[in-house]
């Protein structure tokens, strides 16, 4: 099964260059470990939510897309990055999620990928 790890944190928190460097190194080591275990399928760090652009289709079913500045929700805790992993089950995924470096108060949401629409099973 595939699991998406969504990393949430307070993006208003200020970090020193030293802390930034340590975070980067921690993620580098984490990525390397996932890679060595052959479980990682992808993962990126995202720019702050202020750089997000939202497109919304009207609720009445119209086909326009209203384009606005900003993320889906305006909260302090924002999506800051993600990993995509291939794991046998949730316990295995949680084992990796537990090792993911997050800042104080940060959180990782583990979401199973719904495989029903994958290409080889359609039609």
């Amino acid at each position: 099964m595939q699991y998406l790890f969504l990393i949430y944190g307070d993006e208003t928190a200020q970090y020193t260059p030293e802390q930034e460097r340590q975070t980067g190194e921690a993620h580098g080591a984490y990525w390397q470990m996932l890679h060595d275990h052959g479980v990682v399928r992808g993962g990126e760090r995202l720019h702050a939510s202020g750089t997000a652009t939202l497109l919304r289709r009207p609720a009445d079913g119209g086909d326009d897309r209203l384009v606005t500045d900003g993320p889906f929700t305006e909260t302090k805790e924002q999506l800051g990055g993600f990993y995509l992993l291939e794991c046998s089950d949730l316990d295995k995924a949680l084992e990796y999620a537990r090792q993911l470096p997050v800042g104080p108060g940060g959180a990782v949401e583990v979401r199973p990928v719904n495989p029903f629409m994958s290409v080889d099973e359609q039609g």
Partner: protein
Amino acid sequence: MVTRGGQRTDPVAVGAALDSAHRSDWGRLLALLTRQLHSLDMAEEALQDAFTLAVTAWQRSGLPAQPAAWLLTTARNRAVERLRRDRVLRSKLPLLLHLGMEPGPEEGPEMSTIPDLRLRLLFTCCHPALAIESRVALTLRCVGGLTTAEISRAFLVSEPTMAARITRAKKKIAAAGIPYREPSDAELPDRLGGVLAVLYLVFNEGYSASTGDVAIRRDLCEEAIRLARVLVALAPDEPEALGLLALLLLQHARRDARFDGAGRLVLLPDQDRTRWERGAIVEAVALLGRAASHARLGGYQLQAAIAARHATTDRAEDTDWRGIAALYAGLEALTSSPIVTLNRAVAVAEYEGPAAGLSIVEGLAADLPSYHLLHSTRADLLRRLGRDAEAAAAYRTALALARSPADRDLLLRRLAEIGA
């Protein structure tokens, strides 16, 4: 076909046989079918079908010699038929081939040869990724074999609400890939704690008896004990599992003495100790001895040790409060729970006097401001110190916070006793 009689069987006898099979074999059959079908949902549906089919089949042809084996084989065959019919589940065809159709139900295996996988089922149902109410409901439904109607009555929610809760949980198990296996040795301490917590919650739901049908609540206590027995049988070397079973047995042993003829709550010192169930107490003490031999102390063992001190003391005035306070201190070190400290204060008050107990209780006021037992304990101690006006005020605070009728009734009686 091996049957008793071979003619039409009385529907009442069939009903009784099915109830008994449901009670004793549901969890074990479901656990096995879940492994074979790789789906808890499918397994449950198939087993439900088998129980439904049994009603007419057993009335027509008599009770099978091995009811559990009959149910297992029938459930398996039903699952295979369903899979064949279900186009969407084509992807499961290889599984189907592997499973195959079984010979007629009457030739099924003996129950003793059917592997017992209930522990797996228990760990799946108690997975921390499920909401705690879902864990409790799923455990009672899947491992305990209670019907959704029974569970909803016990927890005072409507049947559709409970059914939706169980369905949601099963959906999450399937979608999120919650595994169906026993945890590894490294995971076990963590995960076992979760299972024990669920069983304890089930028991307390019945024990606290704050609302709802008394008979159903007693069933809930007995169900928790039954599941704890299953856990102990399947994991005999886990001292905390032994400790939990001992604790539940000790608390349940007092059930008949906890309420007087008028249904009012009777506290420990005032209980008629001859009404405590001796057999259960003896069994619990032996379980604690077994647990202690592993030399891995834990919270349930300590709580059970405290309950055992009370249970093995014939007269309330002979209670070893010093020993009990020491056990609470051990529990306090383990849990850092202010509720444990409150209990220690009660024990300390018994051998060092109410003032010593009160000084511990006063220190907890900030931690447990809205816990009615903090205020009622404080009130009891103040009353014993002759500070009736302060006691009355504390009883009234407790009364405003207490929810169960039995607790409220007791507090009103205390208030009357000090003439307030």
